[in-house]
């Protein structure tokens, strides 16, 4: 058998082309498998070397989404230093409805933490001042605390990851003189009770207001006119109507739905807006601000008072007995026939009931929590 001459195809390095763009492809001499030259692959390399070239060195301080560039890879907006508009924040060219939302910038996060933990301002106040939702303010404070603890313990932080994310997403900046609101802070989630459609005949002689609507949705009887603070008592603001009220019996007890004025996260902003429109206070910005601060202070005080009262009531039922190793906490409870039920199996009295099996092995019992109360 004569010695086999290697074919020229395997000996010669492949000529550099858009199909052999990578360094490992250029060195590949052993493979005789031709790379499939599909239309999509051709288009991909054409894009990488054409319009995609501008993404090789992305613009600093820009999200560099595809929608910010035209088909030839040219930046659409005026100049590189122009701030990004809504059109530049669509990461998916085929989904025009998806607009990337801002995340908190690092200075803003630190400022939130500083105002809450150092200046000891309430979460409510900081939320209004910086335009960040109250739940987010709480989350930021907890996370920054965690971060500080991790730093204290000299554990590694995923900083490159955080930096990369902050470069890829739009961020809400923090400038002390000019506050950029991060999000809508006074949104009210749809209450499940309001999903139903109700035909409710009501008298024309009486104003049917939000308080009444809430009571209808909860199945509570109408309030008498003198008890209804929204009925001809303009001096009382509806948002102060936060006293909890129950309706129904036994297991069917539910909270009466309060008017939206009282349920929104920042109800005092209503009173603030009313003050701003008040002709008597038109030129007195200081007075408006004073009233607003006073209302917040009063609200915080009444909340703290209610909380202290609740803790005191709970604590009064408890006897704490110290031993060397632990404490005994003895709670005085009430055993009643109503709680135990006539068959002795009711669950409202203390104690684990007899003859009632554990339900957690029963079919259809979901053990993974499906909701988190916040």
């Amino acid at each position, binding site marked *: 058998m004569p010695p086999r001459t290697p074919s020229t195809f395997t000996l010669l390095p492949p000529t550099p082309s858009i199909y052999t763009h990578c360094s490992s492809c250029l060195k590949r001499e052993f493979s005789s498998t031709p790379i499939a030259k599909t239309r999509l692959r051709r288009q991909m390399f054409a894009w990488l070397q054409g319009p995609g070239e501008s993404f090789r060195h992305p613009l600093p301080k820009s999200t560099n989404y595809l929608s910010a560039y035209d088909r030839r890879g040219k930046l659409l907006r005026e100049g590189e230093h122009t701030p990004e508009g809504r059109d530049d924040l669509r990461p998916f060219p085929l989904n025009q409805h998806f607009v990337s939302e801002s995340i908190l910038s690092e200075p803003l996060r630190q400022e939130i933490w500083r105002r809450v933990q150092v200046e000891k301002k309430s979460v409510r106040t900081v939320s209004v001042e910086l335009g960040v939702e109250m739940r987010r303010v709480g989350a930021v404070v907890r996370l920054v605390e965690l971060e500080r603890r991790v730093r204290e313990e000299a554990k590694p932080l995923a900083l490159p990851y955080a930096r990369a994310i902050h470069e890829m997403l739009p961020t809400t900046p923090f400038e002390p003189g000019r506050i950029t609101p991060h999000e809508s802070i006074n949104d009210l989630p749809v209450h499940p009770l309001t999903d139903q459609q109700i035909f409710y005949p009501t008298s024309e002689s009486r104003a049917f207001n939000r308080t009444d609507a809430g009571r209808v949705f909860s199945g509570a009887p109408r309030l008498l006119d003198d008890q209804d603070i929204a009925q001809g008592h303009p001096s009382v603001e509806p948002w102060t109507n936060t006293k909890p009220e129950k309706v129904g019996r036994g297991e069917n007890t539910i909270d009466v739905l309060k008017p939206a004025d009282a349920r929104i996260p920042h109800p005092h902003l209503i009173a603030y807006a009313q003050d701003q429109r008040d002709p008597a206070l038109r030129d007195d910005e200081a007075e408006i601000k004073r009233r607003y601060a006073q209302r917040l202070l009063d609200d915080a005080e009444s909340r703290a008072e209610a909380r202290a009262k609740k803790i005191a009531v709970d604590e009064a039922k408890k*006897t*704490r*007995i110290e031993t060397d*190793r*632990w*404490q*005994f*906490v*003895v*709670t*005085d*409870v*009430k*055993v009643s026939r109503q709680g*135990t039920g006539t068959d*002795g199996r009711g669950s409202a*009295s*203390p*104690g*684990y*009931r*007899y*003859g009632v099996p554990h339900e957690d092995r029963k079919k259809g019992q979901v053990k993974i929590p499906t909701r988190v109360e916040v």
Partner: protein
Amino acid sequence: MVVKIRLSRLSRRHQPLYNIVVAQARSARDSKPMEVLGTYDPTPRTPLASRDTPEKVFDPATQKMVPYKPRRYKDIKLDFTRTKYWLGVGAQPSDGVQDMLKMLGLWEGRPGTAEALGKGEVAGKSK
């Protein structure tokens, strides 16, 4: 027949939880009692942190701020009124319940014994 205040174990393996019950002395431990007075959880639990829980506290021994270590607790729930009633009509607490009631000041000892008369511990019951 004697009516006793005793513990009845109603829980899974390695997870003890007790009902404090009033029952006939000869009835089975976990049978349906005459009345349930409360519960006793013998496992020391760590209290949940609240917003008032400090993260660090000053330790006078080392003169340093040290992480706050909450004191563990054992949870007892008891209807004091009904317990007093049952003791008043002659229900006899079991040893375990007796210790618990002594701790709460609801039990002074069986009538006529040295313990009840304030002459110290009953022989054989000293701790």
